[in-house]
């Protein structure tokens, strides 16, 4: 009646009896993966021996799709890559096309683009902050984060007409002029938001349980961070300067005053602090620009059909997750011959196995949280 031996065998398939190791599937449907990420984890008790990502559940082959879309069309597809920073994806593609065609973007459009990028960065970090706290078992921060993210989405909706996949940046500038309310609402948002960051620190950062869960978890050395091709807050948490906005400035970032946030801990807590402080830097950038939007055109005059000259063009931008590279190989036609998106998430995910080995399964969610994985960004 009690089929004990059978249950042992069934309960832990893949266990080899001697080491007591067994595998579990985290995902593709799992509360902590925030999307369809599938991790096959080899465990020994609670200790992780190996993490093996299986990707492709949301792979749409955007690179192949773009090969048959014109230079005006393909930008809309890229909003769906990293849907949390769709503005910045669009921006990277627009920059790449502009680089190829040598289009001079009007100053007004440049400022609007940077403003939108930084608002997107805040919105993305907001969602990350809420979701990460939720992964660690604190539900309330999620709602607090969404309250602020909502007001950014409202601002976006007013100007761009959409809340998530805005498709606002086009080659030559932005699609339409900003809404008359834009400046007023952004200023109002900043005024409220500055207080909120302190509130976040009170609610989560200073919490002793939270700090214990984060400190010393998922330590990534600077050498490994570079070798694994990590970028964005993940490398900056390890003390490696990697902010494309500072190192290879695009648009008007070289004229702006902001600090590249660096932490030297290399653990999850360092990565957490980098993102929190990055939000403050984004606020700083917005404050500098919001009253300084120059008058003029919001879009350069471009031909109806864009044709890139034969050659190869590569642009790098800093998204909320790290370095996004757009590599266009053109044969001179109206569509790209080959396009490659170097997504930050793909490289950041590859480090997960390295940092997760030997830690507890509860740490895995902390690591995944601070790597800030967005699955469509990884799968593309």
């Amino acid at each position: 009646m009690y089929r004990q031996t059978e249950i042992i065998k069934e309960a832990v398939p893949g266990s080899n009896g001697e080491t007591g190791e067994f595998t579990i599937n985290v995902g593709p449907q799992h509360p902590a993966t925030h999307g369809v990420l599938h991790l096959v984890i080899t465990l020994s008790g609670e200790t992780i021996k190996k993490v093996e990502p299986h990707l492709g559940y949301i792979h749409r082959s955007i690179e192949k799709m773009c090969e048959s879309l014109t230079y005006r069309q393909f930008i809309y597809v890229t909003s769906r890559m990293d849907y949390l920073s769709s503005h910045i994806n669009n921006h990277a593609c627009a920059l790449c096309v502009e680089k190829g065609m040598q289009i001079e973007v009007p100053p007004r459009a440049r400022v609007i683009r940077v403003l939108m990028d930084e608002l997107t960065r805040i919105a993305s970090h907001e969602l990350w902050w809420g979701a990460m706290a939720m992964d660690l078992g604190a539900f309330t921060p999620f709602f607090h984060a969404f309250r602020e993210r909502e007001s950014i989405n409202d601002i976006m909706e007013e100007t761009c007409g959409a809340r998530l996949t805005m498709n606002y940046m086009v080659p030559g500038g932005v699609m339409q002029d900003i809404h008359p309310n834009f400046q007023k609402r952004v200023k109002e948002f900043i005024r409220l938001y500055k207080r909120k960051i302190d509130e976040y620190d009170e609610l989560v950062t200073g919490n002793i349980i939270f700090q214990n869960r984060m400190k010393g978890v998922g330590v990534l050395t600077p050498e490994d961070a570079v070798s694994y091709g990590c970028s964005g807050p993940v490398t900056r948490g390890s003390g490696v300067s990697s902010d494309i906005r500072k190192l290879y400035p695009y648009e008007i970032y070289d004229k702006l005053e902001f600090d590249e946030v660096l932490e030297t801990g290399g653990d999850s807590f360092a990565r957490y602090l980098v993102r929190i402080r990055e939000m403050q830097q984004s606020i700083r950038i917005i404050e500098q620009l919001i009253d300084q939007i120059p008058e003029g055109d919001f879009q350069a005059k471009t031909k109806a059909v864009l044709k890139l000259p034969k050659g190869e063009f590569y642009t790098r931008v800093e998204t909320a997750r790290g370095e996004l590279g757009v590599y266009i190989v053109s044969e001179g036609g109206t569509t790209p011959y080959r396009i490659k998106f170097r997504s930050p998430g793909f490289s950041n995910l590859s480090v997960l196995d390295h940092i997760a080995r030997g830690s507890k399964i509860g740490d895995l969610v902390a690591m995944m949280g601070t790597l800030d994985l967005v699955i469509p960004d990884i799968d593309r």
Partner: protein
Amino acid sequence: MTNEELKIKITELLPAASFEEGGEWLTISIEPGDWLSLAQQLRKDEALFFDYLFCLTCVDWKTHLSMVYHLSSTQYRHTIVVKAKLDRNKPEIETVSQIWRTAEFHEREVYEMFGVNFRNHPDLRLLILPDGWEGKNPLRKDFEDPVNMIRL
């Protein structure tokens, strides 16, 4: 280092390398056989110190495949592009995943999308595509999928 200095330095390392003009960064064309030794030197050399492989991909030129490696140095902030021409019917190149760990994932992606065989890769399996896609390479130009692909 500037592009000119890099050019001189890399010619010293690999006299067989040829250089493409016109790009933003120094572009080096090499034979696939030279890649591993060049890669090791690029990574190790104190003056070059290319420790950041930020993009690894492949382009299908219908007659041949070409591997494209974008390398940069976190210390000196210079960037180069290395290209290697591969035979389209039997594309093979040495892996660099032990030099730059990020190559492990990117090479797996190129393996399934283009069918490039990376010799000595520690774990060359399908990463994104589901099982049963071995041999079908979606990002090659002659790939056809009558159901899911829409030609515009």
